[in-house]
Each structure stands twice: as structure tokens, then as C-alpha cells.
């Protein structure tokens, strides 16, 4: 625990004892977290507190208790909060759009809100993020005419404006097709400046593919923080396949090859142990936390 505290206190972005309630519902219950430069995946089921945590880190929400520090800045101080926001790119989970704006118009508007006031610089920024998300050809299209996937890419594009040092993306791959997801992974991994990136997702394979770090949030608490390999390793010896469904398994599903994949305490006799994945580790944690 001492080691963990030390790491938290020196992280670029850190949260100490964050808790947040919405009426009788506890969204966060004492979250300690430190985020380094690079991509961190945030995994958790619906209602785990991911969106609340991200909104607090984005200075949009305030915790009931606990502290947040972003690059050494305290969001409780008005001036420092603005400074944090100057370094921030944020994609909320549920984002509406000004549907009558054009794509470029919307990005230009957001760029001004991000204090990119120089016109030439703004135009360059808009062009750059449009190219990054593959929407250059849609620059003059009204947002109302975009598909759901295109709107999601537009949301990512606005978050990228200004080359943020802290990029918070709440379920950015929702609505993207497989090709777009691949492109998104490539985009994040190639962002210049080595920013701190936090993305929440239900897609464990996204985490495995691009996140050097992963945090599992369950019932408002951090249940795991480590590398994807470590998360997968946490399920070692708990995953097996069999021809039949095994009643003692915590989680079972039938694969494309017709065989059942099980996650449980230990494989029964005759079962074929298999190498665990990030998803297996996450599911095992979820079961242990009683969320499944």
C-alpha cells in the first residue's frame, strides 16, 4: 500500500479517496488512482462509476470527498481548474451535437471554446483532427447528415483539438465499425506529445490492443490496476474449455467452434485449460466482486 500511495502522489493525474453519491446511490466509494502518460483503459460494467470518475477527472463533476490533481493543479481552485481544462480533451459518454452546424463549423466553434483564437492556427487544428478521424471529405456536411459512427468520430476529433495533454474518452469506440476501431487504435497510439489518455470501454480487446495500463472499476471501487497481461494472468488456471457446459463455472459461453469456454474456480477433471485473455481476467474479477 505504501508503494501504491507513493506512486499515486507522483502521477501526472491522480485521485485520492474520491467518493461521489447521487442520492442514495453510491457511484464512487474511495477511489485512489494515478495515471501516467500513455493510454490507460478503464474497464467496468454499467453502473460501476466509470463515467462519474471520468467526469470528475475532466473537472465537469465534483467529488463529495477526496482530491484530484492534474499535472499538479487542483481543480477546486477556479484558476487552476481553467488551467486543467486548457490541457484537456474530453469526450463524454453521451454527447449530443449541434446538428445544424457543419462538421468544420462545429470543430471551429469548439476550437474557440478551447481558446484557439488565431484563425490560421484554428483552421490548421481543425484540418488536422479531421484528417486524424477520416472526416476531411465531410468538413462541409451538416452534422445532422452524419451517420452515428461519423458523429462518434467527430466527437473524438473535438477531443483531440488543441493537442491536449490529458485526453479523457468515455466509450469512444461505441458505434464504430471494426475498421474504424482499428483506425482509432492506430490514432491513439500515434498521438504526439505522449499525453495522458484514459478511455473507458466495454471492449476488452481494445484494451488488450492499445492500453499499456488497465484499471478495472467495480461498484465504485478500483479492483485492479496493472497491465493487460497482468489482468489476463489474474485468471490463469481459472479458464478452460469443454464439450459440455459445466455447472460449477462462474461464467460459461459457447464458442464458434462449438466448445464451451468456462471461467471458474478450477477446471474439473478432463477439462482443457486454456490461456486466459484480458476479458477472462475482467470477468473473473467481476464475479469475485459480485457484479455478475
Amino acid at each position, binding site marked *: 500500500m505504501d*508503494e*501504491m*500511495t*507513493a*506512486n*499515486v*502522489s*507522483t*502521477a*501526472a493525474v491522480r485521485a485520492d479517496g474520491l467518493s461521489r453519491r447521487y442520492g442514495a446511490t453510491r457511484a464512487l466509494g*474511495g477511489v*485512489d*488512482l*494515478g495515471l*501516467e*502518460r500513455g493510454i*490507460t483503459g478503464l474497464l467496468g460494467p454499467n453502473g460501476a462509476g466509470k463515467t462519474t470518475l471520468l467526469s470528475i477527472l*475532466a473537472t*465537469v463533476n465534483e467529488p463529495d470527498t477526496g482530491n484530484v490533481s492534474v499535472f*499538479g*493543479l487542483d481543480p477546486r481552485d*477556479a484558476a487552476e481548474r*481553467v488551467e486543467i*481544462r*486548457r*490541457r*484537456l480533451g*474530453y*469526450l*463524454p459518454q453521451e*454527447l*449530443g451535437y*449541434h*446538428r445544424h452546424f457543419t462538421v468544420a*463549423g462545429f470543430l471551429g*466553434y469548439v476550437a*474557440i*471554446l*478551447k*481558446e484557439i*483564437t*488565431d484563425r490560421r492556427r484554428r483552421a490548421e487544428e481543425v484540418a488536422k483532427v479531421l484528417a486524424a478521424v477520416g472526416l476531411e471529405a465531410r468538413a462541409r456536411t451538416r452534422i445532422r447528415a452524419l451517420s452515428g459512427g461519423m458523429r462518434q468520430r467527430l466527437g473524438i476529433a*473535438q477531443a483531440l483539438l*488543441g*493537442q*491536449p*495533454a*490529458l485526453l479523457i474518452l468515455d466509450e469512444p469506440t461505441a458505434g464504430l465499425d471494426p475498421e474504424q476501431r482499428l483506425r482509432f487504435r492506430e490514432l491513439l497510439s500515434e498521438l504526439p506529445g505522449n*499525453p*495522458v489518455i484514459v478511455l473507458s470501454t466495454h471492449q476488452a480487446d481494445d484494451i488488450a490492443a492499445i492500453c499499456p*495500463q488497465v484499471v*478495472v472499476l467495480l461498484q465504485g*471501487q*478500483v*479492483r*485492479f*490496476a496493472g497491465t493487460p497481461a*497482468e*489482468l489476463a494472468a489474474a485468471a490463469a488456471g481459472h479458464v478452460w474449455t469443454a464439450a459440455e457446459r459445466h455447472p460449477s463455472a462462474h461464467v460459461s459461453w459457447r464458442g464458434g467452434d462449438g466448445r464451451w469456454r468456462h471461467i471458474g474456480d478450477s477446471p474439473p477433471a478432463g477439462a482443457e485449460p486454456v490461456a486466459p485473455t484480458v476479458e477472462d481476467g475482467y470477468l473473473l*474479477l467481476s464475479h469475485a466482486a459480485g457484479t455478475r
Partner: protein
Amino acid sequence: MTAAAGGPALPGVDTVDPTAGQSPGRDRSPTAGLQTVMGLARVEALLLVRSLLILAGLLAGGAVVWLAIRSAEPLWWNVDWRIGLGQVVLGMTVLVVAQLAASRARRNAMTDLYASFPTTAGIRTVAQLAGLLGAVPASLVLVGATTAVVQSRGAIGTPSFAVLAGGLLLVLAAGAAGIAMGTKFSHPLVGTLGAVLLFLSSGNSHLPWAAGLWLYPWASFGDQLGSLPGPLAGYPPAGAHALELAGLAAFAGVVALATAMTRGRTRGLLAAGIIAVATICLAGALQLRPIPTADLNHLVTEVADPGSAQRCTTASQVRYCLYPGFGSLLPSLKAPTNAVLAHVPARARPADSLTVRQVAGLSLPDSTLTHGHPDRQVSQWDAQANRSPANRTSNSANVPPASTVYLPVGSWPAAGGPLADAHFDLALAAAEWAVRIPSQAIDSLPPQASGGPSRKVTLACVPLDQAREAIAIWLAIIATHPSAGALTGVEGRGGLTGVKVSDLVAVKVGSSLVPTDIWAYPGSNTTAVTGPGHGPQATVAGYLLAKAMASLPEQKVARLLTDGWPRWLNWHSTDAELAAALGIPMPSVHAGLSQPGTPVEPVCTA
């Protein structure tokens, strides 16, 4: 990275740099806030400029202004206030658009995203308020287009800068109100409701004191601006009203900022709010001040005794007496008058010269005009104003001379079709004077049932079966050349037999009913001209004969008249004699229909 429990800690960074993570490209200069406001305001202004709703408001506002001024004399002291009515309509749409813009983030579920930007809600609201300048072009287009129309129609007077500025401020105040609403309420109907309230407030005053009319955003009805002989300072109190609108705009802006800003600068906002409210109160008090007695005395005198204020010009034996500033009307008055008189030699005209005189009507008591003055003073003004030639119908004892044609201020139309109608109207009046048809006759009314002596009254006389009536109408026709379709009479409606009894206007002359006024001529539905005097009642027979004469070669009729003016000016010469002299059949006219209670009208016998 680390977690409180459940997993291994992650490697951290060695040091934390407060300047770390600063993103390139962002404005860090001391004027960054101002630059951001200007950038956002530019976007908001462009959205307003390109808004189809505001374009619709501009068109609707233009239509409203057009409807308000199209049939009125282009008097700037009336028109500039009517432009404000169009600004009300434009302001309604600006209010709706501004409310939608201010509530954009919440309505589009983007509150969280906006909250993550360094630009605060307060700065966004300031930018939106500044962006209202995007509504200025539409407002100026309305003013400019109306100005072009009014100037092309021969504008009288000059526009009031204070009134026009007030219209612009009204649009800005409406937009600021929309932003204030939008910062609190995101439902789009809120803006619509605000627009409806703005529209309703442009009606008559519901305040307990009449001058409160001016306190509304824009009072559009209930004034007498269109009939005044000139601008009257303080009616309406334009400068104070513009100040009130500026105060309202500022107050709405303060409310919007106070709603948007969650913390800080409350003291400054409070001070600004107090100043705005004080400005509104001061402007209200200024608007409720009575119009100075001297100004009202001058106005009533101008109305009651037009000659005291007018300048007269004599041309071709006709005097034209106009209020100051109306000199530009002279050519359009001279043209039809001279055209008639050109066909009537001087020896045939009446000895008294014809006077064409402007008159102004003033309806008193009107508390928007006379508020704050003692009742006795108002009664005196009322009695004085009733002596105006324009008010003579309410005072039969005030008989105007028969050689005067009156032009009520505000009724002489502008260029185009209505002006042609007015030209015919004036030509007809001049022709009736030229052929000496008296305008009225004094008649006796029998004693009332309650007893008492018989009363002398002035009634419009009827030129029954008098050739000079047809000549007068013919003179008006050849002087102004109305289009073939402009003159429609009984024949256009299938003849007398096709006319419903309810359509018939007939007067009882002696024991017979004479159809009158059953023909429509250019200007017959207007009041561009009254007179001479009450004006005779044209008969259907006279009209039909004149039309038949107009179908003859002009020289033929002119030669007949030149050879026998004394004969044709004699009221004993009949329609039949004139028809026979011209060799045309006498149009047949129905004898008239009996209508109970028809009063007996005198025949024009002078």
C-alpha cells in the same frame, strides 16, 4: 498508476511539473478572454445573420411595415414609428433564435462537454450577447428598405434618429431577453412564449395611466401621428424610450450573466443590474412627463387655424396652402387642378379663386397627448381643435367656404395607384368648383317632437338632373385619364336592376328617390380630398352621362362647352339637354327605390 486495492501498483513519474501538459496553439496572452469572446461572438453573429428564422422575421417585419404605411401619406414622423412595429416582428424572431442559441448546450446534451472547456459559461454568455450584433444587419435592412420606399414615394419630413435607434435597440433587447431565457430554460417553446409576450405588448396600453402606452416595448396603436401636421416633440418620447430599451437590454444581459455564472463577480453584476433598473426607471419617468403646454398650444392652433401656420402659393388663380414641410406636394396638387382649369376659361370660372388647403384633424381628449394637464385646459384645447376644418362634420355650424378644397393631412397618398386616385379626387373637386356646383345648402329641419323651434342645418345638396354635374365629372376624367377599369358604376354590376336594394344609396329629393354614389371612381373610397365644403352628392345619371361624354372625341365636347359655358353652368340646364346637344342618347336610370326613413335632401340650386 495505482489502485487502492486489488492490483499491483504502476510505475509513477519522478516529478510533477505544474507547467506540464500545456497544449500548443492556445492563446495565453492577457487578452485571451477578449479574443475568445470576439471569436465566439463572431460565430454567434454569423449564425444570426444566416438564420432562416430571422430572415422570415425580416420579411414579416417588412410586410407589417408595408401594411402600416402603404395607404398612408409618407410622413416621416409617423413612418419611423411604424418601422418600429416591423422591428417588433423582427425582434420576436431574434428572441426565439437567441433563446435557442443560449440553451443550445443543454438542449443538445452537451453540457458536460461545454463544462470541460476553459471558456466559462459566463464568457459564452458575454459572447452571445455581443453576437446579437448579428441581428443589426436585418434591423438596418428593414430601416433601409423602408427608407427607400418612403423616399421614393415623396417623403415629408425627416426620420428621427432616436426613433430609428429605438427600433434597433428593441431588436437587441429582445435578443438579450432571449439569451436570458435560454440560460435558464432550454425548452424551445420558452422563446416562442417570450415572442408572443413581446407581440402582445405592442398593443394598446393596459396600464392605469394612458401615457403608460409608451412604457411598453413598442406601442403600435392608439396614436395620432399619421394625422399631425408635423412632428411633435415628446410624442412619442423617442429619446427616453430608446433609453428605456437600452436599459431593458442591459438588464436582460445582466440576468443572463447572473444565471450563467455560478460564482464570482456577483458584486459587479449587482451594480450593473442596479444601473440598468435605474436607467429603466429614469426613462419611464421621462416618458410619463407631460408634453409642454406651449407645444400643445402650438399644435392645437395649427389644427384649429391652419392658415396661421401655413404658407400659401398662388398659381393659375389657385391658392395652395400647405403646412411647413409639405411643399413637395405642390406639383402633385397642381397637376390635376391645372388640367381641369385648362378646359374652363377664366371668364367661366367663379369670381372667388379656388383654394386648396391642408387641414389636420386632432381627436381630443387623447390622454397620450394631454396627460398631466388640467381638465379645464384639455377642454379648451378640445373646443379649439373642434374648430378645425377637418373636424367640421362634428360641428355643422362651422360651414367652410365653397371655394376651398381641403386636404386632410395624412390622407394625400403617395406615388403609384393611390396617387392617381387622389388626383382624380382633387380634379373632381376642382371641376365642381369650376362649374359652380354648390357644396351644400342650408335647410330647415322640422321642430323636434319635444317642441321648440325648427333648426337650420347644413346638408350636402344633390345636383339633380343638372348638366353641369356631368360636365364636372367629364372634366375630371379628361384631366386625369383614369384607366378604363378604374371607373365602374352601375353598369359594371349589371345595371340598376342587378343591384340589391341594400347596395343602393339613394337620397330623397322632394318626393322622389335619386340614386347617388352608386358608382366607384378613383379615390371614391379614400378621403384624399374633401370639398368644396361637404361636396355635392353625385348622381348616377350624372356619372353615366359623363362616361358617355368621355367616349366622344374630346374636341367635340370641348367645342360645345366653349360655345355655351353660360348655358351649361346654369343649374336649370338638364342632363337631357346636354345629351341632345352632343347627339348622344340619354342613359336611362332607374327611378330609385323607396327606403323608409330616407331624409329629404336639398337640390343644389345656386
